[in-house]
């Protein structure tokens, strides 16, 4: 009998000046969703069912940038994306450009289970959701007042339209200033950290049969171009699961894609023979070029691990032997 384990995240790259009340709220949501997953695993649910259920909870809570509470495109609309992967048989499903489906992660699962394809996007994905009878809501359901305000600030900051690899004048990037007194110039994904909506959500789990699964869901970048696809729906980048481990990533999507970060954690375990935490550390250190990101992971033997190279990651993890943790900072 293997040991179950679960890890969740609500995004990497947290404003160090995030008010205490928001920090507490984040931890409350994380703890609640983590506990839901733990209860299911204790009751013998499969890792696949657990990651879907936990991500649904995270999507439904408006705190994080997925489902309700998703970041807005330049046009002020919501375009969500999600993916799910079953380590058993490496089956996978993904969706992008979803605008009315209440829980994109469940649509990704339907793509995996009920379609001959692995990835559906935009109108085709919406059409499939209707065929499958998934719950849909008006696009306005996903739009929160907070995010309308953030979009306005993002537009004023004039960022994202430009190459975010070039720091804004007189500023520096995320990790360089971590812990410094003045975080005002911190930039992530082209956005000042105070506006940046990092809160992509994800879950990785291994059940007591030793099967792994991972799922990731996001509204993407605040002020993104319509049609922009990030790392979350890309198998091997934002999400990956196999016989060795399950991984969900978050952060600067483009950096995660270039490094195929989620697959690389598994590849380092498979091909270099490193244990989970060392594989995570290696990938965060060696594989992320100038980008900022974080990830959570579980191994098929019931270990949990996480890593990030920027200021904070909303996260939680628990294992069968009683370890449980919810945190934001290092």
């Amino acid at each position, binding site marked *: 009998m293997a040991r179950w384990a679960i890890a969740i995240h609500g995004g990497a790259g947290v404003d160090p000046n995030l008010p205490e009340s928001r920090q507490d709220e984040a931890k409350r949501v994380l703890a609640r969703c983590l506990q839901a997953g733990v209860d299911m695993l204790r009751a013998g649910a499969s890792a696949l069912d657990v990651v879907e259920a936990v991500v649904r909870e995270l999507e439904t809570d408006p705190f994080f940038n997925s489902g309700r509470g998703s970041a807005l495109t330049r046009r002020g609309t919501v375009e969500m994306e999600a993916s799910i992967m079953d380590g058993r048989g490496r089956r996978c499903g993904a969706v992008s450009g979803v605008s009315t489906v209440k829980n994109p992660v469940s649509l990704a699962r339907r793509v995996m289970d009920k379609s001959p*394809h692995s*990835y559906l996007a935009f109108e085709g994905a919406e059409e499939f959701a209707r065929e499958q009878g998934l719950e849909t809501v008006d696009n306005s359901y996903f739009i929160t007042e907070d995010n309308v305000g953030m979009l306005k600030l993002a537009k004023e900051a004039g960022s994202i339209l430009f190459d975010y690899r070039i720091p804004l004048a007189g500023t520096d990037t995320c990790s360089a200033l971590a812990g410094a007194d003045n975080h005002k110039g911190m930039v992530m994904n082209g956005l000042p950290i105070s506006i940046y909506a990092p809160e992509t959500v994800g879950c990785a789990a291994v059940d007591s049969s030793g099967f792994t699964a991972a799922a990731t869901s996001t509204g993407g970048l605040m002020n993104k171009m*319509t049609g922009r696809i990030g790392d979350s729906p890309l198998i091997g980048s934002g999400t990956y699961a196999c016989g060795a481990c399950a991984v969900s990533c978050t952060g600067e999507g483009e950096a995660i894609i270039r490094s195929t970060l989620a697959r690389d954690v598994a*590849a380092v375990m498979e*091909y270099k023979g490193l244990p989970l935490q060392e594989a995570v550390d290696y990938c965060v250190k060696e594989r992320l070029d100038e980008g900022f990101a974080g990830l959570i992971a579980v191994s098929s033997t019931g270990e949990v691990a996480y890593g990030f190279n920027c200021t904070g990651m909303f996260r939680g993890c628990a294992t069968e032997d009683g370890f449980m943790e919810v945190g934001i900072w290092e």
Partner: protein
Amino acid sequence: MGWALALHGGAGDVPRTLPPELREPRLATLRRCLDLGAAALRDGRTALDVVELVVRELEDCPHFNAGRGSVLTAAGTVEMEACVMEGATLRCGAVSGLSTVANAVSLARLVMERTPHIYLAFDGAEAFARDQGVETKDPSHFITEHNIERLRQAKEANRVQIDYTQPLKGQQAQKETPADGNSQTGTVGCVAVDAAGNLATATSTGGLVNKMAGRIGDTPVVGAGTYANALCAVSATGKGEEIIRHTVARDVAALMEHRGLPLRDAAKRVVAGAPRGTVGLVAVSRGGEVCMAHNTTAMFRACATEAGHAEVGIWTDAGAGADGGESVSAAL
């Protein structure tokens, strides 16, 4: 060392009885594109320019499933996708759901070079194409008689052509050969290493006959159909869903990077690890090694190296290894 390039026009189970009118134009295009790419490398063009140039030519050829000649969705439309990646910088760009852009690969390059993003799709990608002023065509430009007939046959056979994982209820698992023997093939791709050792890859496709609208395959997914890093450049083709779950292109690079395998061994292992009949790939290493491997009965392919090796082929001669067709050349 030295430059090298390899290109493909899709992998699949193509019968050797493929009629000359379907065979010859493709072989001629492969030869022409190989010469074009080799000449550009000899002239000192960068690997990135060369893969774009070659894939544009392949897109313009109506006999391959990319650009003009793209296969049709269940709705009878074209939805093209493409990806480009540069090894040294890991910069990449991808597009999906294009219906009017003449050369999807060039739009992928513009996404890479002129947006903060990597991947744009559907209406947003089309809007970006218009912003950038790239050449667009009426959707009818891409649709050939041949593909209208293919779609008709696919619909008549009442089969989702790619549903190889889960047979529809009441049907046997179908491994039938599509009517014209090659409906599943035709994605195009090119990999190159230039004389300075820069690596690049590009892949472009119309996807699958009778695909659901909105379906994204492996081609634009970085790490699945397309990947390049400082060690190698890879372009894969075949059954997209298998290529995605096996992260085929990235895994060739990962085996070189994390396990220290040479290109040929890495490529063979990845292709052998996928179900038979599903994957083909072309790859070049920084050192100028070329590998074209597939576990299908055929792959439309061509390669050339600075050292003078050149080949163009479809099937693999009997006597090839148990892991299917494979042809390798190492420039010494």
